[in-house]
């Protein structure tokens, strides 16, 4: 999307927030229903399955200088246990002495098991035309194995609790040229940008619904997008500095949002606009 359009959209969005709620009419409710029909019509035949298949192949393929697969990667439920792992991430890991989300844990495994450098492991985190992302494929594969599991992120370890608190601070922190915070769009009820109903992520039901739908095949992107991408793109749209892939800040914000979604039934990779 070009920068001018983005700037215009941001200004439009800023003007719309908080004032839209007054203009709910029967027309817009019908519109909402039609959008729901559109989403349902796409649910069967989700191209994300193609990423899941590629991710499974990458998980089982001998790669890197050590010529090893990822089948011994510990995602928090023991080496190689993929089922249900995503529903418990982010999580503190003793071997790295830090809280890691799925993407950072995959990078850790690619480095320690397969011998890649961190730069090689983090290369091309987001796919694009003519450029495939291995990380997105692996995310699709691993998250699919948590489908149906209730979100169950713990913050018992002091590092986990710390990550949650830092994530909360980030969520409410206003900054950037438009003085936005995540909460500007996602901290109030009945907000909307164009046709997008914005979930209020400080409310449990909305938080559950939103978090459990990522990763998603975004038809407008033509790619499966991970949660790291979702946060990166929000930062971009707020005109914040770039959110570095698998940075502590990104993991902390993920921790805050994932833990708030606890109890919600995970149902991804999904398909979205």
């Amino acid at each position, binding site marked *: 999307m070009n920068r001018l359009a983005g700037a215009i959209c941001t200004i439009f969005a800023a003007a719309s927030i908080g004032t839209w709620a007054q203009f709910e009419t029967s027309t817009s409710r019908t519109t909402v229903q039609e959008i729901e029909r559109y989403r349902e019509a796409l649910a069967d035949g989700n191209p994300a399955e193609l990423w899941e298949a590629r991710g499974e192949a990458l998980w089982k393929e001998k790669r890197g200088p050590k010529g090893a697969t990822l089948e011994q990667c510990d995602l928090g439920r023991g080496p190689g246990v993929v089922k249900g792992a995503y529903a418990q991430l982010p999580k503190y890991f003793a071997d790295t002495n830090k809280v890691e989300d799925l993407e950072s844990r995959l990078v850790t495994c690619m480095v320690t098991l397969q011998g890649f450098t961190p730069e090689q492991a983090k290369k091309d985190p987001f796919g694009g035309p003519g450029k495939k992302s291995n990380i997105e494929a692996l995310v699709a594969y691993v998250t699919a194995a948590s489908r149906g599991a209730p979100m169950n992120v713990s913050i018992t370890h002091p590092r986990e609790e710390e990550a949650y608190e830092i994530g909360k601070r980030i969520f409410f922190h206003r900054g950037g040229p438009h003085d936005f915070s995540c909460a500007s769009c996602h901290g109030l009820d009945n907000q909307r940008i164009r046709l997008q109903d914005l979930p209020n992520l400080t409310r449990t039901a909305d938080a559950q619904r939103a978090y459990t739908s990522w990763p998603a095949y975004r038809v407008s992107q*033509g790619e499966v997008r991970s949660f790291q991408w979702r946060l990166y793109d929000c930062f971009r749209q707020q005109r914040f500095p770039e959110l570095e892939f698998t940075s502590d800040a990104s993991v902390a914000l993920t921790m805050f949002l994932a833990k708030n979604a606890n109890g919600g039934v995970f149902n991804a990779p999904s398909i979205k606009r």
Partner: protein
Amino acid sequence: MSDPMKIRATMAGDKVEVKVLMSHEMETGQRKDSKGATVPAWFIQNVTATHNGKTVLSAEWGPAVSKNPFLSFRFAGGKPGDKVIITWTDNKGDKRTDEATIS
């Protein structure tokens, strides 16, 4: 080297319902890249589905078919255990064939 299709073939009453997901960019030839150059058209032109050697569907596509195409159709005369074979060919001459067993 293209990625495999995902094909599901199930019995729906006395018909076989086939659902196919193909991996393909389906470039329209209208898009410009970040340097302003037009990205050339690259899309699936022909799709054929066969069962027991008989064509059960054929299609000609243009680049307006969505990226990572999804296709579903129904035919009679198949039963569980039979194979359905799908082939696509694109405008560069690339070809891909995958099959699924009717469940």
